[in-house]
């Protein structure tokens, strides 16, 4: 039977079996504090998005778990179980190869953006690392297609926000490595445009310095 592995913000993650293989069951349980109609819509939409973008991301050259089964009505996805460590913990533990992994994160984000995929929730707990080296992207519930510079810049802005809040001591270094990795795929001009746009987004925020 399934065993609760993790209770995330959005979904409960169970470890179980799917036709003899170890599998993850991800259920977006109803949130009683939300209006029923809104809750249904959010859970269904995110389940569908997640399933389709797990596939789209792989087409773009970014590793993701295989999707075995989806049930949009109950907001359930069954997918491949991948035994790995979250990048979040690897940074906390100050693992030696974190630098290389950050560059790989940057390269992967650039590949996604190159295929017009916006992840929408780039945090260090959404990157799984297998065997200390292979990077897997998960949690595509907030993903969408877009070719707008603005959406890509917001994606990176969120990444930066997570680093400065949760990994303050390594944030600057990690983010610059991510940008370098991004640049190796997308080119220097693209990164320049993105950095400028990120500056605009930050200045739009509350009490941002007007310089």
């Amino acid at each position: 039977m399934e065993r609760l592995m993790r209770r995330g913000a959005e979904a409960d993650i169970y470890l179980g079996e799917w036709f003899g293989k170890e599998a993850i069951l991800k259920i977006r349980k109803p949130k009683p504090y939300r209006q029923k109609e809104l809750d249904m819509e959010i859970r269904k939409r995110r389940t569908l998005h997640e399933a389709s973008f797990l596939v789209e991301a792989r087409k773009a050259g970014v590793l993701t778990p295989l999707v075995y089964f989806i049930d949009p009505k109950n907001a359930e996805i069954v997918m491949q179980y991948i035994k790995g460590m979250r990048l979040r913990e690897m940074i906390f533990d100050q693992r030696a190869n974190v630098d290389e992994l950050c560059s790989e994160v940057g390269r992967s984000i650039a590949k996604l953006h190159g295929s017009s995929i916006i992840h929408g929730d780039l945090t260090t707990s959404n990157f799984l690392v297998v065997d200390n080296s292979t990077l897997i992207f998960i949690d595509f519930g907030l993903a969408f297609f877009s070719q707008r510079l603005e959406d890509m810049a917001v994606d990176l802005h969120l990444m930066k926000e997570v680093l400065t809040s949760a990994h303050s001591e390594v944030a600057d270094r990690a983010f610059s490595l991510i940008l370098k990795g991004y640049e190796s795929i997308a080119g220097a001009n693209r990164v320049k445009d993105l950095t400028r746009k990120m500056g605009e987004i930050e200045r739009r925020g509350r009490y941002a310095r007007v310089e």
Partner: protein
Amino acid sequence: MIERLYNIDQISLLLQGKLNKEVTCFGIESTAHTFSCSVVSSSDVTHGNILSDFGSVFSPPPGSGIHPREASRHHIEVAPKVVKRSLVQARMNMKEVDAIAFSAGPGLGPCLRVGATIARSLSLYHDKPLIPVNHATGHIELAMMLTGAKEPIVLLVSGGHTLITAFSLGRWRIFGETLDLTVGQLIDQFGREIGFSSPSGQRIEELAKKSSKYIPLPYTVKGNDVSFSGILTSAKKLFHEGKDLESLCFSIQEIAFAMLAEVTERALAFTEKREVLLAGGVAANRRLQEMLGEVGMRHGANLFVVPKEYSGDCGAQIAWTGLLAHLAGVSVDAEKSFVRQSWRLDQVDVKWRD
């Protein structure tokens, strides 16, 4: 270089009432519509150490917002009375307080300058240390003191702020925030459109209670960030198309608060903290409290809510934080005590926390 008056251990002893000295701080809040003064003493951390808290709120005519010049004029007019009343209420005179704190930002320039000018004069005349306090830090510190929260994820929601933060390595780190309007602005600007005077949170909450009809409005969560501008635009449009006001108020609250609950839940799951603290003016909203209570329960975290009388802008938030800062040796020379209209919470060096 100013030496620390006390180290962190001594500060915590002091806060537990175990250090044999009472320290008092006079605080002035004047970031926006409120001019308020307070005296806080550190003999213990119970509610009782707010010796006084007295203020006056500028209220703009219905349908319009806070004009900075008009608000600052109001502050100048009420200042002498407010300063005096807060001292009388505390049964103290200015000579007896140990430090003078003022809200140095973020906020409206003309309003901030009123409070800063008064604080500088008092500090120079009475020869007391002058302590600049960040307004957002003030909301959080006072809420922590009053509720007893120790290591919370904080949701700060007011007219000036909408952010989720937790303390780490000397600073309040922002996990998520609004990309445009604050939730207070959303509510007040909608209120203004329908002819209410700001702040209109209470009246909107009352209207919302009369309906349970849900009208879809844009739900915008980007990672840990939220955006409220779409809700405001749609709600205004629907109002002018004749949708009933009660259902609109109900739906604005339901959607905006569900967004806040979601991003709080995300930060909570990410940090694995055991406490959620709700602070700022909008914390007084019962529906928001209810939603966050459910979020906390799901993750085994306790919800702390700042008491209603101290949820809005008040002198006590400045006096209390000023006191903590004073004990940690923070002060500024009057000549250098500029106000900072854009002083973000994550730029404040918090010297009084480990």
